[in-house]
């Protein structure tokens, strides 16, 4: 078992996401430390990929910026290793399966352990295909995070039963991106998960405001926010550290149930 459970110990978790290497790896390294300091309980780093099919336009463009700036899987690992000198909260990679597969599954997992990556979220690796890397993840003690979606219905039980680390509860149909309203009955999803497992579940996709985050955290164990943060990085570029930290602080307060002003 990894350290991921610590993110949820006696608290609601706030989980920010940034695309690794956007706008460059130095900024990402600073963002990790600043987000931890601002209250992030677990940090998700996107491994840039040429064709991120589960992402909306905001994160697609972040992937393009990161690749254009020269981010590679090796450089990203090196950066995380450096950041780990300061950052202690659990860190997970969000990566498509191809960068893992072509890097070599064992080699990838070995590097994860060396650099302090606690888990992997692989959006194009559904339950039926998780055998592709589940054995390697198990062997190296890296949690393979399961996703459940609004369309999963009864599949939720099967997925929850074997879940590790935490369960990523996808709140909306479609791809990542900010939404004005979350229409899915997420409470129903998390209730079904609860019937099967004690593994924590955090809700993501579409969350951007403190109100949405607070609402999702009330019916789950935490809130995941990606596009809203990546948008800040896109507008501020190299100067994104302070505004991202400020945003994370505000969101952490919201999920913790502190009064919203």
């Amino acid at each position, binding site marked *: 078992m990894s350290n991921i459970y610590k993110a949820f110990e006696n608290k609601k978790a706030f989980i920010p996401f940034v695309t690794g290497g956007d706008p460059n790896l130095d900024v990402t390294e600073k963002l990790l430390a600043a987000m931890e300091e601002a209250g992030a309980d677990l940090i998700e780093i996107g491994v840039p*990929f*040429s*064709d991120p*099919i*589960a992402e*909306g*336009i905001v994160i*697609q463009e972040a992937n*393009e910026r990161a*690749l254009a700036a020269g981010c*590679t*899987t*090796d450089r990203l690992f090196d950066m995380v290793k450096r950041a780990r000198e300061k950052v202690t909260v659990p860190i997970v990679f969000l990566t*498509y*399966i*191809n*960068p*893992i*597969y*072509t*890097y070599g599954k064992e080699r990838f997992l070995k590097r994860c352990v060396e650099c302090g990556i606690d888990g992997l979220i692989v*959006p*194009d*690796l*559904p*339950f*039926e*295909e998780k*055998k*592709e890397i589940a054995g390697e993840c198990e062997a190296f003690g890296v949690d393979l995070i399961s*996703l*459940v*979606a*609004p*369309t*999963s*219905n009864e*599949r939720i039980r099967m*997925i929850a039963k074997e879940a590790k680390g935490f369960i990523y509860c*996808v709140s909306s*149909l*479609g*791809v990542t991106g900010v939404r004005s309203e979350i229409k899915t009955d997420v409470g129903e999803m998390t209730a079904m998960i609860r019937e099967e497992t004690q593994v924590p579940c955090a809700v993501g996709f579409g969350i951007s405001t403190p109100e949405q985050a607070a609402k999702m955290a009330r019916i789950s164990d935490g809130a995941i926010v990606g596009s809203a943060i990546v948008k800040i990085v896109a507008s501020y570029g190299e100067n994104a550290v302070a505004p991202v930290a400020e945003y994370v602080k505000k969101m952490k307060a919201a999920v913790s149930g502190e009064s919203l002003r």
Partner: protein
Amino acid sequence: MSEGRYGEYGGQYIPETLMNAVHELEEAYNTYKEDPDFVAELDDLYRNYAGRPSRLYYAEKMTKDLGGAKIYLKREDLNHTGSHKINNVLGQVLLAKKMGKTRVIAETGAGQHGVATATAAALMGMECEVFMGKEDTDRQALNVYRMELLGAKVHAVTSGTMTLKDAVNETMREWTRRMDDTLYVLGSVMGPHPFPMIVRDFQKIIGKEIKEQIAEREGRLPDAVIACVGGGSNAMGAFYEFIPHKEVQLIGCEAAGLGVDTSKHAATIAKGSEGIFHGMKSLFCQDEYGQIAPVYSISAGLDYPGIGPEHAHLAGTGRARYVPITDEEAVAAFEYLSRTEGIIPAVESAHAVAYARKLAPTMEKDKIIVINISGRGDKDVAAIARYRGVEIYE
């Protein structure tokens, strides 16, 4: 291993959001493929709407000119909408209708599959939206208008390299947004299971007809079947019936663009490596970190960085072999078939013609080659003229 494997290739590497949708599709397909009404309805559409069976034509002049094996052309170019794509879309759109869907979405490269899907949607009264790379909507403006004429809405995709792979990405994204009333009509033997199987099954009529027609003409099986390969649907359709007949050589022709030793090609089997992308484990043109490579071919229909998993398997086992054909060879073959037989092939199909020109002279005169002419070349005339330095625009 999971469902839909061809050796180690294939699978269902897609977001959880889509899993119930592909399961629903598979279930419906397994039900309807055995349903006599469905089979009869599709057969009627093939005959009376698409114009099947397509002809098997003995290319006598070409045979004499090359001085070797007898050459037959399977005339998929004579189908309604001008290519083999109609075989698949009639099947899939009819299936969508039976499933109670009211809307179909599709990706397209040059526009052949988009036009075919828009056609079937018009015929069966379905809403249709087609995703096409911005580069391709510019290069193939006529096909965009053609799809709109048929009542489809065309979205120009501006992400990534703005070509076919990005159109596939965007259609997948759209499907995750809306699947209740919508079916993704995939255009080739690729993507997550069950698509490679369904598309192959709807295309295998090509090989089935070849087998019957050549038996009638020659009283035996052909010695070689040649087809071009992008994603690989026309080749899979032409090959499938012959896979158990080991004496029949199966040859796929990949787009080598400016040459396999340059960076400008789409020769997945010659130059690609194993990966997992667009829902399938297969071979892809990619870099050492698994970033999908931009690919190139004069033929927009072969301009795809992957290949269907069943082809990867046939290549791996050696049952089929795959050869790279350059732009120059394809264009020369395009002109050659036009002048020799009065048949203007699609530039995609010209890749298969090009290899036949190399192979036939090395074979005895009593041997038989069948080339699948997967589409007609009207759409390519302007591009070929420009390749030859004649500035014509549609």
